[in-house]
């Protein structure tokens, strides 16, 4: 296809989308208005299942199947990064050297690492009650661990991230989501149906399957992101090709 034909095709498609988008926008409720047709229904459905955080109710109850898709995308990403960034035949691993860190940086890391980990666990555990959830808390947990690299060196980070365990945890958590969906199918007749007792509103155990699915996503995201970052960091820090200079720049 020539550049001209491509441009013409783009212009035609863009014109169609622009017209329909403009027409659709004229029918939309005004910005910041009081009318929220989807919001009203979602809040009612979340309250019926005693889930205080409506967004978590949408993510893990009303549209849990969407979340399964998103979770599978992340799982696939981690899997393909692991596959692509493995040690190739013409590459070798040069163990990272221990490094000196400014005392203030070390102090910053020592104080902030536990705080960040607790914040991550809190965000995952209270996903059904307050803003946050498995995804957000998982990313916080994963990035918190890397304060160990900032405050010490790469060897310390390698000690605090057991990659073999995290690989397995990632897969088990991804499988647990599907297993809970199948359990809903067996017990309630629909995949990912909320079949567990709903509990008391605004308690950490409320929401039926929501806290469980939330925790599964939290474990999957945290371990998946750590594994993903580990492969990127290995490539940037430890793995060198045979044609690359051995002298490392720091």
């Amino acid at each position, binding site marked *: 296809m020539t550049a001209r034909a491509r441009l013409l095709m783009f212009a035609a498609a863009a014109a169609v989308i622009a017209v329909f988008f403009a027409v659709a926008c004229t029918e939309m409720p005004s910005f*910041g208005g009081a009318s929220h047709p989807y919001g009203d229904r979602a809040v009612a459905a979340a309250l019926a299942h005693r889930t205080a*955080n409506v*967004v*978590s109710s949408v993510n893990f109850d009303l549209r849990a199947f969407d979340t399964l898709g998103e979770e599978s995308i992340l799982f696939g990403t981690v899997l393909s990064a692991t596959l692509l960034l493995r040690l190739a035949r013409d590459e070798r691993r040069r163990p990272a050297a221990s*490094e000196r*860190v400014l005392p203030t940086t070390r102090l910053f890391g020592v104080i902030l690492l536990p705080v960040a980990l607790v914040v991550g666990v809190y*965000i995952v555990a209270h996903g059904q009650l307050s*803003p*946050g*959830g498995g*995804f*957000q808390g998982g*990313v*916080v947990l994963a*990035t918190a661990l890397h304060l160990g690299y*900032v405050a010490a060196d790469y060897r310390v980070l390698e000690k605090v991230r057991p990659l073999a365990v995290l690989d397995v945890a990632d897969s088990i958590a991804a499988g647990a989501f599907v297993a809970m969906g199948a359990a809903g199918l067996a017990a309630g007749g629909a995949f990912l149906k909320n079949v567990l007792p709903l509990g008391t509103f605004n308690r950490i155990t409320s929401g039926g399957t929501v806290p469980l699915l939330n925790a599964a996503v939290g474990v999957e995201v945290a371990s998946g*992101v750590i594994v*993903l*970052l580990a492969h*990127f*960091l290995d*490539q*940037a820090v430890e793995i*060198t*090709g045979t*044609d*690359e*200079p051995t002298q490392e*720049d*720091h």
Partner: protein
Amino acid sequence: MNTPLMAVALAFVVVCATVAVLCREPVRQALVLAAMGLGLSVLFAVLQAPDVALSQLAVGTALTPLLILLTVRKVSRRSAPEPARAAQDPDGPAPGGRPAPRPDGGNEGTGR
């Protein structure tokens, strides 16, 4: 609703996004992207979407720029010995004609 803060956050996001597109150097782009992620998460927070603000803060401000910076570090280190070869190549650009890839790739944020 907090309209002035919303307007400031929106303007900041638009400016950052434009700068990220116009800026051609990946390391600077990653840093601008992180700033834009921060602006976006403020925007989401004032638009009463704290869940999305948290995601944006964790992924857009911390994770994505970090992955970009690590990739740049790896790629620029691989192409480090290139200027020597380019200087010998008579058809290639003049030795001083193009900016030589810096071996340390401006990795201010990845290393230490």
